[in-house]
């Protein structure tokens, strides 16, 4: 049968304290009462053996039958004042030779006679009397006389009495102490767990609106400090995610405002009076272009939202990056040539694990970006290198140097280095953000650097498949 689990830490600790102290105290009580008892027994046997020795000496003085009368007298003198000491000396026939006066032996002498003559101390009870005693064979002074049986005993009722009350108070103490230590345990556990209650209280104050609340870790006991620190870190991540989400929502609203207001104005103006079919056609065509841009933006934003939620899981296959780059170059070749740009690819790398469509998209965005910002009649070069752990593709173009304060923001969604170009045909400023999401989904890194009119974007991907799997 399983014991029901105790859910409360306080109760658990209290019980543990009580159990532990009761076990220790019980053990101690047993040891103490045993040793006290043994002490009494030792004292008694020492006394009894002393008396037996005395009787032995006295008996050695007896040389004839007449000597027994003096023997009894001598014993009476020797044993006087020994309260509760019982002595019986029996002849071999069982006939009593001497019995202590006033003792309790006489009526029970038969049983005294039955004691084995071992000389070892024994305890026995007779009615309400309890004895500790020994029996031995004692030889009188003359070999003509038959040996005597001597029984020396002492009443131990008062010992037993004492032991009983001693044990009673000992156990009473054990029970009381157990209760007290349980209570103490309860108190200590409650006190010890107070910081947890404080932590709970602090946690309760954290809401979506007040994610900036942090738990103070300095006043906490060291065991809880780590928990609070972890909790604070979780809050930080939550706050960051939350802020990005709300930024994203406001970005969307902002980005949609312009095209929608264009569409509305254009359509309403077109409808404001009768026009030729060509004019209507023109208005609709212009609308179509705007809608296409909107749809594209929506798709890109959905892709990013999915990437943020970790839903973009790459389908892994071995990718030859050189091939991907040259395919992407083939796509952009005509556009590049029309701007007098040369596309140049150098280096090869071992295959990496990745999703072909996604990596192609990431590369395509980088190349499109490079073409967009390259000086006319310059060269765009893609360079493939690898080391032990990773492979890297860098795309370099000649163009205006990007100021360092902007370079880190290039991968932010909707970021455009030149705000005036925001509504050109070049997209919503999501391309590099998408590239970064793709690279991150592949456990890689994307970096940018720009100096001396050279701008380089570098994708670095892990070489091992394990690192690429999410």
């Amino acid at each position, binding site marked *: 049968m399983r014991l029901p689990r105790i859910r409360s830490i306080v109760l658990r600790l209290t019980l543990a304290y009580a159990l532990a102290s009761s076990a220790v105290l019980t053990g101690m009580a047993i040891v103490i009462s045993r040793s006290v008892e043994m002490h009494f027994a030792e004292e008694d046997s020492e006394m009894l053996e002393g008396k037996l020795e005395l009787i032995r000496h006295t008996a050695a003085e007896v040389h004839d039958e007449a000597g027994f009368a003096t023997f009894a007298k001598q014993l009476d003198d020797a044993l006087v004042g020994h309260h509760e000491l019982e002595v019986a000396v029996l002849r071999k026939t069982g006939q009593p030779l001497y019995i202590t006066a006033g003792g309790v032996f006489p009526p029970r002498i038969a049983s005294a006679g039955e004691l084995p003559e071992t000389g070892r101390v024994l305890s026995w009870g007779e009615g309400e009397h309890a004895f500790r005693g020994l029996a031995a064979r004692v030889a009188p002074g003359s070999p003509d006389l038959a040996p005597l049986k001597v029984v020396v005993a002492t009443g131990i009722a008062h010992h037993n009495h004492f032991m009983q009350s001693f044990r009673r108070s000992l156990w009473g103490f054990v029970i009381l102490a157990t209760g007290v230590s349980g209570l103490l345990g309860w108190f200590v556990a409650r006190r010890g767990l107070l910081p947890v209650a404080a932590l709970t209280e602090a946690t309760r104050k954290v809401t979506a609106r007040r994610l900036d609340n942090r738990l103070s870790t300095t006043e906490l006991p060291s065991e809880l400090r780590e928990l609070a620190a972890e909790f604070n870190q979780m809050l930080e991540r939550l706050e960051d995610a939350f802020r990005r989400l709300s930024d994203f929502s406001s970005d969307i609203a902002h980005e949609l405002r312009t095209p929608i207001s264009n569409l509305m104005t254009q359509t309403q103006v077109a409808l404001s009076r009768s026009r030729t079919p060509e004019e209507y056609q023109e208005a*609709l*065509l212009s609308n*179509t*272009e705007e*809608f*296409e841009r909107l*749809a*594209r933006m*929506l*798709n*890109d934003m*959905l892709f990013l939202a999915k990437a943020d939620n970790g839903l973009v899981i790459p389908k892994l296959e071995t990718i030859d990056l050189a091939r991907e780059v040259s*395919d992407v170059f*083939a*796509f*952009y*070749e*005509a*556009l590049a040539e*029309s701007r007098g740009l040369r596309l140049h690819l150098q280096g090869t790398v071992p295959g990496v694990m990745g999703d072909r*469509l996604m990596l*192609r*998209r990431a590369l*395509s965005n980088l190349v*499109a970006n490079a*073409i*967009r910002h390259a000086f006319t009649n310059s060269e765009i070069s893609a360079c493939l290198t690898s080391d032990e752990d990773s492979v890297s593709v860098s795309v370099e173009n000649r163009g205006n140097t990007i100021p360092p304060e902007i370079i880190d923001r290039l991968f932010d969604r909707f970021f455009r280095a030149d705000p005036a170009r925001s509504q050109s*045909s*070049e*997209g919503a400023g999501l*391309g590099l953000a998408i590239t970064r999401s793709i690279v991150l989904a592949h456990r890689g890194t994307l970096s940018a650097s720009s100096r001396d009119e050279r701008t380089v974007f570098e994708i670095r991907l892990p070489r091992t498949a394990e690192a690429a799997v999410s």
Partner: protein
Amino acid sequence: MKILIVEDEPKTGEYLQQGLSEAGFVTDLVRDGFDGLHQATTETYDLVILDVMLPGLDGWKVLEAIRRFGKEMPVLFLTARDQVEDRVRGLEIGADDYLIKPFAFSELLARVRTLLRRGKANDPQVLKVADLELDLLRRRVVRAGHRIDLTAKEFALLELLLRRQGEVLPRSLIASQVWDMNFDSDSNVIEVAMRRLRAKVDDDFELKLIRTVRGMGYVLEASD
């Protein structure tokens, strides 16, 4: 060619019907899954356009029932949810293609035509329109007796236009078919490539074969 449209959103349904009718198809429009299933199993259609989110019976169930009934016509799914599982599920239970809303009508038209053409053995070695000839085997293009030199990609582009002459091909379809770029690339790459192709194929001739349809894409036809 008869097409069944199952779409509960009133505007979408109407525009689809109008657009497809004007493209020369006979169309029926129904508004929910039960009607859709009834129509699809009692009438004969060459293609079904099926919205996933439908009142009554959703698109998956309609499709399953249609296939159970033994109807083998191609089914094109329309979905507003771009989830990989959705696509996989759709293709598993027998959808032939899917489009994610919002989509360009020209894209839909191109997909519909592809699906309708599927399975018809029609693979000539030489593609022709007016005085333009494209020899697939010899990889040679001749117009009015003059040999035209094309790069590999230009050849592939012209082949696509010729194979689907008279159809307006959206940019995304061209990028996907010729360059294997299966995502929105917001550059005017296709425009430049098309301009270069036209410089070689059309510029020196009176009759222009390749036309830009603004807002839609490109079409190759021998119109006068």
